[in-house]
């Protein structure tokens, strides 16, 4: 599935960019993220505990930032393995543009997300995967904006 979200942030583009490459900030925005560990400049491993309705799974995942073009765009590649539950893979293309927000220099953040799942998650979860991915994305973005505008 694919998903497109766009939102305004009352913070300058350079500062939004700095947050987007900060593992600590990212981990605070990811629902259920328990630990995050930096492997290299652009790679992180994380431990996620996800609970959506009847599905309660723990994922070990990696995030890699690619196509870095500061302070304008990057692609976040994520993958997670939930043991017997299955696996999930996704990519989020993030783009920042200058935008006047509430009379000040702000940022327009657009996010194009693609997600695929496999294993039992896909087998029984097909009905719920899209709606769950959308929820995790909007939760991520609203927390990110809350942190940015704090």
């Amino acid at each position, binding site marked *: 599935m694919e998903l497109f979200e766009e939102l305004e942030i009352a913070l300058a583009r350079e500062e939004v960019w700095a947050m987007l490459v900060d593992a600590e900030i990212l981990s605070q925005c990811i629902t259920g993220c328990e630990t995050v560990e930096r492997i290299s400049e652009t790679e992180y491993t994380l431990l996620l505990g996800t609970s959506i309705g*009847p599905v309660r799974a723990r994922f070990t995942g990696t995030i890699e930032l690619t196509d870095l073009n500061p302070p304008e765009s990057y692609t976040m590649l994520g993958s997670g393995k939930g043991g017997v539950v299955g696996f999930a893979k996704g990519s989020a293309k993030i783009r920042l543009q200058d935008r006047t927000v509430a009379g000040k220099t702000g940022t327009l953040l657009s996010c194009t997300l693609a997600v695929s799942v496999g294993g*039992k998650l896909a087998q029984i979860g097909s009905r719920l995967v*899209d709606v769950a991915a959308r929820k995790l994305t909007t939760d991520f973005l609203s927390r990110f904006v809350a942190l940015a505008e704090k």
Partner: protein
Amino acid sequence: MYSFNYSKPDTIEAAREMMRSAEDGIYLAGGQTLIPAMKQRLSAPTDVIDLSSIGELTDIDVSDGRVRLGALVKHADVAGSDAVRSAIPALADLAAGIGDAQVRNRGTIGGSVANNDPAADYPAALLGLGASVHTDQRQIPADDFFVGLFETALEEGEIITQVAFPVPDRAAYAKFPNPASRYATVGVFIGVRDGVTRVAVTGAAPCAFRSAEIEAALNAEISARSLDGITIGADDLNNDIHASAEYRAHLVTVMAKRAVTALPK
């Protein structure tokens, strides 16, 4: 299955105590979602606390203009209750159309409501009738209860004891079932009481919701005709292999018209 602790308390207090001391506990009502999820290992709680021995949760009471269903009342019991059928026929019909015979004979109203599946039938009835959810702690109006995707206003460990429906003047439910699961691809529940019409939609979005547009049109005139020209936006609707968001948006008005037409005169 893998091993887990199973307990079957007789009282709500005992159940809560067990939940408090469990590492990763879960309540079991009818088990029609939980057990398949556990079999598939999509859920692996350490403690399953079976509520079925708590006798007070299985009562059906119709009096004082209210239908009160204990949390563990099964769908088949609601469908087969003459008292419920004579007070709110639409509610009995809705229960009769949930899932298949197995689900109806095991699944419970409390389990369905607590799980808040986006395609479950009961949330539409609760919202459409302006019901209230009673727990061991408090009373929650349906409008405040269903928060989001599989999310409710329930606190950790809180137990639903009863769902109370005010008896409407007229009500009807129309759903477009998924042919395999009988989950609502889209379902619309309409309840009319004291001249006010409530319209609740399930299956279409991440969580059941009331449609302000359809309510406004029906509050002006209760007829299928008054819904001509109403289009529901597809932006926030569910999109999956069973139905696109646009298709679901279209179905909302179609099901609303069918429900209006089915309202008892």
